[in-house]
């Protein structure tokens, strides 16, 4: 099982926001956002909730499990 996310799509839906702008908004580095979108880094619960709050969505709408 692998953790997937819709961060990139939501980022573009929010006025083609850049990774850097999103990183500034939630208080992490651009590299962290990039790694999350690529599925190479799983965020903590705290960061996942911050991202969900920023996009005005639930955590389940942003992150989901997929069978690899």
């Amino acid at each position, binding site marked *: 099982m692998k953790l997937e996310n819709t961060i990139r799509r939501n980022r573009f839906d929010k006025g083609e926001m850049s990774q*850097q702008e999103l990183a*500034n908004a939630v208080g*992490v*580095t*651009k*590299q*962290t956002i990039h*790694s999350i979108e690529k599925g*190479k880094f799983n*965020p903590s619960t705290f960061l996942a909730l911050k991202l969900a709050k920023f996009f005005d969505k639930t955590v389940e709408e942003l992150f989901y499990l997929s069978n690899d």
Partner: protein
Amino acid sequence: MKKVVNVYFMMITAVITLAALLIVIYLINTFPNMLVEKNSLQLIPVLCYFFAFGFHIISVFFLIQSFKNQLKYRKFKIFVLVIFVLSVISFMMDKVMIDELADDMRYGLEYDLIMVTIPLLVKVFYTVLILILIFLLLTDKNVLNIFEKKDETIFTIAQIVGLISGILGMILVLSHFLRSLPNHGSWLPAYSIFFIPYGIIIAYWLVIKFKENILEWVDEKQWKDVLRAALTTLILSIPGLGLMFIFNKPTEYYWFPYFVFFILIVFSGSTLVFYKST
């Protein structure tokens, strides 16, 4: 507009500095006794040197400004880092040169021309690199784009500088060790010079982070990468130190700087690899 004026100011002063340094090198090689005998020409190399030293100081702020301007291309960042490390080494070489000259003069000895020429040549090389950087800045349309990064640049820079410093220090230590140069601990202060660039970056990072909560000094991914790098360093440090004994040479004091530089290389390198690849 302000940055363009600064870049042009740096370009003019860099050209003058280059000329001044070449004049000094020419004079002291043509008139070797100039620095020890009272001579009307003495003032020229002294003034030229101080002008070059002043330019060197200003160029350090220029390099820091280049960091803060968040140069867009990675090649620029690496290039600025290399110049920064060379700048610190050049300062240290100046100190050694002046100390050696003072000792020679105090004891009435002839000064070694190489001791004077080499630091000046390093300064020439450094000034040329600054000029190349200025040229790249002036010819790249996007180079002055400024965008905010949350401490990411400083974190990456610290690792790259640590890696460069570690490699340079390791080369020096191994060159002494493999040639079995007698070491009575007198070289240890010289090895510490290579930690200065890394120390400056870390100190700068601590200064800008001082007022923040320690848990927010790095983000969660950076914490994870640093911890993985620390574990990697711990595991590799023992066989790394063991490598020294393969050469079947007396290790004397060399094991200590070798071990420290090895750790610096592995820790900085692995942090960088984990941070960028995951």
